[in-house]
């Protein structure tokens, strides 16, 4: 009796273990499927942000070109403001407190991580600029750099 019982028990235990393992991993999968769309950082181009702004305070990423002649340094010495342009004339004002990436200049590509504040300014907590002459943030690959800069230059002639 006991001899036939033991293998059955082993098989039974293996089944239980397999079921528990699958349950835990499926649980992890569901957790990920639920959390990912909520927690992922969505990427916006300036025109998208103007048209359909994310809710205030939600962490998103904004990518585009630093519009020429918009970069200003505030008096505290560590905060800058600038406007970011995309493929259209839409501009988004960005405020960033911190040390600027090394190759950050007007007319260069930038991805700003942060969130929209209530006054409509995008408050960046981190800036990703190209960090050597070859590297372009992945999100900006589709953006025609010079074209975008030219568009901005053309459309902002005569404005401050």
């Amino acid at each position, binding site marked *: 009796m006991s001899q036939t019982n033991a293998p059955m028990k082993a098989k039974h235990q293996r089944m239980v273990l397999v079921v528990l393992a699958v349950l*835990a991993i499926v*649980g992890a999968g569901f957790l990920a499927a639920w959390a990912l769309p909520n927690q992922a950082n*969505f990427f916006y181009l300036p025109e998208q942000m103007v048209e359909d702004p994310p809710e205030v305070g939600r962490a998103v990423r904004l990518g585009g070109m630093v519009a020429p002649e918009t970069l200003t340094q505030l008096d505290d010495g560590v905060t800058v403001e600038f406007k970011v342009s995309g493929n259209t004339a839409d501009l988004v004002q960005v405020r960033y407190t911190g040390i600027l990436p090394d190759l950050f200049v007007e007319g260069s590509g930038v991805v700003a991580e942060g969130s929209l504040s209530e006054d409509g300014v995008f408050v960046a907590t981190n800036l990703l600029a190209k960090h050597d002459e070859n590297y372009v943030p992945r999100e900006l690959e589709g953006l025609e750099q010079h074209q975008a800069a030219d568009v901005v230059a053309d459309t902002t002639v005569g404005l401050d």
Partner: protein
Amino acid sequence: MIPEIGLAALWLAAALSVLQLVAGALSVKEAPAGGASPFAFYARPAAVVQALLATVAFAALLYAFAVTDLSVKLVATNSHSAKPLLYKLTGTWGNHEGSMLLWVAVLALSGGLLAGLERRLPERTMQAALAVQGFVALGFYAFLIASSNPFERLPIPAAEGIGLNPLLQDIGLALHPPTLYVGYVGLSVAFSLAMGALITRQVTPEFARVMRPWVLGAWVFLTLGITAGSYWAYYELGWGGWWFWDPVENSSLMPWLAATALMHSVSVLAARDALRTWTIMLGVLAFSMSMLGTFLVRSGVLTSVHAFAVDPERGTFILVLLLIYIGGALGIFAMRASAVAEGKTFAFTSREGALVFNNVMLTAILAIVLLGTLYPLLTEAFDVRVSVGPPYFNPASAMFAIPMFLVMAVGPLLRWKQDTAGRINRELAALVAILVVAAVLIALLAEISVLALLGLALAAVLAIAALLPLRGRKLARVPTATWGMVCAHFGVAVALFGMASESAFTEEKLAAVSAGETTQVGDWNVTLSSVDAVAGPNWTAMEARLSVARGEGAPTVLNPQSRNFWSPVQATSESALLTQWDGQLYATIGQSVGVDDDGNERWQLRIWWKPFVTFIWYGGLLVGFGGLLAMVGRIRDDLRRRKGVQRREEEQADIEELNAGPRTLPEPAE
């Protein structure tokens, strides 16, 4: 000439991997019961010679970089004659082709070591494992030769090299990739052994004892590689963070999670003959994660500091290899798993039970990390661009990590097979008391996030629990492997304490200051003395002279730099660190931001005080050292046991010879 020798060695190694695969496979197929097939002779020497050839190929590339042979395309595009020699050498693997050659060389070396040293397994299982190892190596030789030839020559030698990404010109690069690769690729041995055992139906405790040191070795290197990489990113990137949940970091974390689970499960198999199929599955999973990591990093689907090349052809090639190996392994697993008999049973409250629970938790964390890493690739297919960061990874992985840490505290106190909570109720009560007291005290004293609070409290529990298995034992008689476990578990507590403390208590100061001005961070006073221009071999920099003092203490000088390299043109921030026993002061300098009211130039400074941040890496080192102790202990026990067996056999033979002696005496010649 030398690069051609390297390429020839690579081709020969590839040919030998074919021999290894065919000879191994034939000898498995045709082996007479218990005997050796005539083909069995070839696989081992093929693997050993292959390892030598792959080493020659790597040495040839190393030489080309050392002498900056600009007729070699890879050198011309990735090196520069003005670089310091150390960075010329480390630059060998600071690019796609070179790092893949290192990968393959490590793969061949692991195969050679396996073939040369491992004599404990049944020969047929060994042949099957070597055939699998040869098959894996063959695919990666083909990848290297067909789409990433590191020895390609330029029709006309370049006048000067382009240079190496300055971020990679650091001693960290000398250590981090080779260590990580040894770990990554060392798991290939676990994979081959698992497949060999599955194919020849030899999933036994003896097999687990053979597999264990290989898994431990790979795991130790992975642990140290991740620890080194984390510290490197921390001081080199100048962002003050030590883990960014960057896809490439995740690519190294995933094999580590799988290997950690595998290491524990193989111990259960060795000690208790349970978890047979689960161990095999984890062996497949661990190396699959290594290959997936290689694919993610090497295919260019990710853009990061680590992605040297964006080339769809290479990506497709590795993806196909990945599908063949993982698909093949899972196919064999599906066919054979039912043939592996169940191991011994155990109660839920037992050491096996705790290990199984944590194995499942580790796998669940692996799933969380994997899905989070692949999610941006998935959404990109629908043209939605997202990035996934700490807001997802931290809480989602903590949901599984917290129960895991709790069980980890108790597991080593339980007995094998069957136990009751009542037997260890005093220890349990003590641990629960520590958890509650620590959590309440910290919550009262400091206002920190829930995760950091739990992290600190759990670290306290784990630190005590890690030492409990030593209680009531004569320390001199505790086996080395047990010391290894104690050390590694204690290391986890130390690292967890560092992580939680860093996230909870870091203080940051960002300010624009002129020379002579002082700013405060925490209880530190930081005075900017001056900013000067300095020059290195291939860079110029603005260097700040910071005088930092804790309270009224004596000042120390820190010199953070903002460096500009000219080949390739790139700027980096060199942070300056002041290490104290209870934390690190981390300073970086930014740009000049005009003059203040008195006409003095102002500079941006960013300074962090990070309490106990160093414990993260001390913990990592302890974990790695624990693994090393366990490995040494197991190998020594095994050698001792084998020597014992051998001696008994010899004695037995002697006795038999004595008994049989008179009868076999030769007849005296007449």
